[in-house]
């Protein structure tokens, strides 16, 4: 399966995301923000970083990059898309996911190994996990506080779209300890922590993050044959 990794000006974690795709057994395809061609990929990762310097709002300008027109269209058609950290912010700005991410409530950048509970294993990116499974992956953000109005939060909970929750300490003030969410179809996932930094025992806290990248590879052919 070909998994595209988008590179915006200011992306930081595209190389690690590319490695994670390869280690999981997929073919990683770099996608340039200025291109509108998705090069025949079956899924897309929007990596972490500071696209466009976080100017205006995190992810606000990246949302209008030429590559995003195609990503949004294909995501609406069912193509799996994973937004990590800044990628999560881009997905919210693009209205592929509800809510928004604001500055951490404690006003400091946070960088730590974070314990999470996988709440939903029925998405394109979490099928390799068991519901309720606890994992540890790095977390690093300055604007990772997930917010949405109460009605949206209730709907996310009721529909099982809260994908992962922070355990132990809420590191950024996210509503209801939400670390990641999915769209109702389960193909679009946004996650503030960084599974791509936890795919090899040598670097990072372990290999708990690898499941996100192996999950998408196990999708049925009719889904992955999109385009």
């Amino acid at each position, binding site marked *: 399966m070909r998994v595209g990794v988008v590179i915006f000006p200011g992306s930081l974690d595209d190389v690690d995301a590319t490695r994670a795709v390869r280690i999981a057994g997929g073919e990683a395809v770099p996608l340039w923000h200025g291109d509108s061609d998705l090069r025949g990929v079956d899924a897309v990762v929007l990596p972490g970083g500071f696209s466009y310097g976080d100017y*205006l709002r995190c992810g*606000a300008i990246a949302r209008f990059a030429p590559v995003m027109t195609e990503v949004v269209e294909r995501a609406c058609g069912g193509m799996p898309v994973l937004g990590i950290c800044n990628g999560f912010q881009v997905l*919210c*700005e693009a209205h592929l996911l*509800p809510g*928004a991410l604001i*500055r951490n409530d404690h006003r400091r950048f946070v960088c730590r190994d974070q314990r999470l509970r996988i709440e939903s294993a029925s998405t394109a990116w979490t099928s390799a996990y068991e519901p309720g499974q606890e994992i540890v992956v790095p977390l690093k953000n300055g604007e990772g*506080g997930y*917010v949405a109005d109460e009605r949206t939060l209730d709907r996310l909970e009721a529909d099982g779209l809260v994908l992962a929750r922070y355990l132990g300490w809420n590191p950024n003030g996210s509503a209801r300890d939400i670390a990641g969410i999915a769209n109702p179809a389960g193909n679009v996932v946004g996650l503030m922590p960084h599974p791509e930094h936890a795919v090899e025992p040598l670097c990072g806290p372990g290999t708990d993050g690898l499941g996100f990248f192996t999950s998408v590879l196990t999708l049925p052919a009719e889904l992955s044959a999109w385009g």
Partner: protein
Amino acid sequence: MARVVVEVMLKPEILDPQGKAVHGALPRLGFDGVTDVRQGKRFELELDGDATPERLEQVRALAETVLSNPVIEDFSVRLDGEPQR
């Protein structure tokens, strides 16, 4: 030529850590009596030609789609020199 001012503020119910940080610094600088600070953004858009109602409507659309995120922010649009509504 016309200048249109767009102001964007976080909605009242959204936490503003930047405003809180500024507020926290004020007593250290000897400013007393400020009970709260909220920080926002001001955009000045120079228009080529007059600010017709149609063009102001375009600016409003721009403010809603790009300059602000309606999930967390409110915005106002006015001609420069006009009193704020």
